[in-house]
């Protein structure tokens, strides 16, 4: 399993792996928003938590279809499925690799990008904590979406349709926490609720992903 994680990270970092693509997208989105809504600091401060969260969500979505698609195309997935590794474990490791290459960099980049969007400083810790707790859920749920669409020729668009409604609770609590933080309120409650969703998703979604993979390999 650790070997699989190391292999996935290696593939992501090497040429053509698409590492940093999500991050670059996140950056561009945050740069574009002020052009769209105008540079007034008050407006930006008001919408910054939401923009940062929606941006993180979309950046996550961008790399989802690569999770299984590449392995399925070159036959690696068949071989992994016949290996002693359980498919549940494979799905978990793939989600972890996705988080390490997408969710973690996004979390780290959120604070400086918050400055760009004039995010109130008291909101920054809440935003970063929210992303740190929420992006793992985005990765495991996204892995499920990728597992559902692995056999399809043009699964990329379908993934967004399947996965985005599933992201709703995480987005809602995450953005709410950052918004409360921006108003100087305590945001522990939404953060804890989101952590609960993340914990449940990490515990249960790999089974759903593995089931979907098994069905698709048939």
């Amino acid at each position, binding site marked *: 399993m*650790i*070997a*699989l994680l*190391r*292999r996935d990270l*290696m*593939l992501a970092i*090497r*040429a*053509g*792996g698409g590492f940093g693509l999500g991050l670059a997208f996140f950056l561009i989105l945050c740069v574009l928003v002020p052009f769209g809504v105008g540079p007034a600091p008050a407006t930006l401060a008001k919408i910054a938590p939401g923009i940062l969260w929606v941006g993180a969500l979309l950046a996550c979505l961008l790399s989802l279809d690569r999770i299984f698609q590449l392995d399925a*195309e*070159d*036959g*690696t997935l*068949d*071989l*992994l*499925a*016949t*290996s*002693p*590794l359980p498919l549940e474990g494979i799905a978990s490791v793939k989600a972890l690799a996705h988080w390490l290459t997408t969710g973690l960099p996004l979390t780290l980049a959120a604070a400086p990008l918050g400055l760009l969007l004039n995010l109130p400083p008291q909101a920054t810790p809440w935003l970063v904590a929210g992303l740190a707790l929420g992006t793992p859920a985005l990765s495991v749920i996204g892995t499920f979406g990728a597992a559902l669409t692995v056999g399809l020729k043009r699964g990329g668009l379908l993934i967004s349709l399947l996965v985005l409604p599933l992201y709703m609770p995480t987005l809602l609590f995450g953005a709410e926490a950052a918004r409360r933080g921006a108003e100087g309120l305590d945001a522990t409650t939404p953060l804890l609720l989101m952590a609960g969703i993340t914990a449940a998703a990490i515990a249960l979604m790999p089974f759903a992903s593995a089931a979907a993979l098994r069905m698709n*390999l*048939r």
Partner: protein
Amino acid sequence: MVAGFAPALHPRGERVQVKYCIQSHTIYQITVFVTQHATLPAPPFPVLRQSAKRSGMDYVAHDLACARGDRTVIAGVSFQLGSGQALILRGPNGSGKTTLLRCLAGLTPAVHGTTSFTPDDVAYAAHADGLKAQMSVTETLQFWATVFGAADVTPAIEGFALAPLLSRRIHTLSAGQKRRLSLSRLVLTGRPLWALDEPTVSLDVQAVAQFGAAVTAHLATGGAAIIATHIDLGLPDAAQLDIAPFRATPQTDTDPFLDEALQ
């Protein structure tokens, strides 16, 4: 040495079971596996006499039916294979060789029938190489060795003459070299039954001979192999099984939506 395979028999009793399997074949499969596996009936067909001296495990498949997608492609396939033996699958394109091998490897559950071995005994090599262009040969071998818990990658390197390629990235390899690397994974699995789908595609004459030698070496250690191929691999003792006659017919097809449409 006898090398004969009778087409599977469909006694009346089994047809009733197939009918039931139309309604819920998952549950049915499990039941049958438990009951029939314990008391596997004497095969009603000539059996390969074991040529190997050691008496290892026998690999028996009884009345297998395998599906691709919604359709049962082949039905009634039976074979018995002792350790040290190879079985060559023959048949025109689309006759179900790949389907059968995927079924043996556990990627698709069998629609019907039993096997005496589990997918964990089977090392599967598909059409696709399953290699990543960005990884080096050593990294690839190390990765699969770790996945399958193999301690040492040298048998794979020696068996497929990979030593000169070790430090190269896979995108610099030729198709034949990739194929050899892909097949060398079989050694790393440490599994006794090899299920190979057209293993010699894009191999040159020398590499085919090398591959034949690797299979022979595997058989000599008590393994077995089922190989779908069109060419001669230099395995004189190998039995042949033409699977074209096992192609699913309307009688063996279990599509649940055919029941009334047929009337």
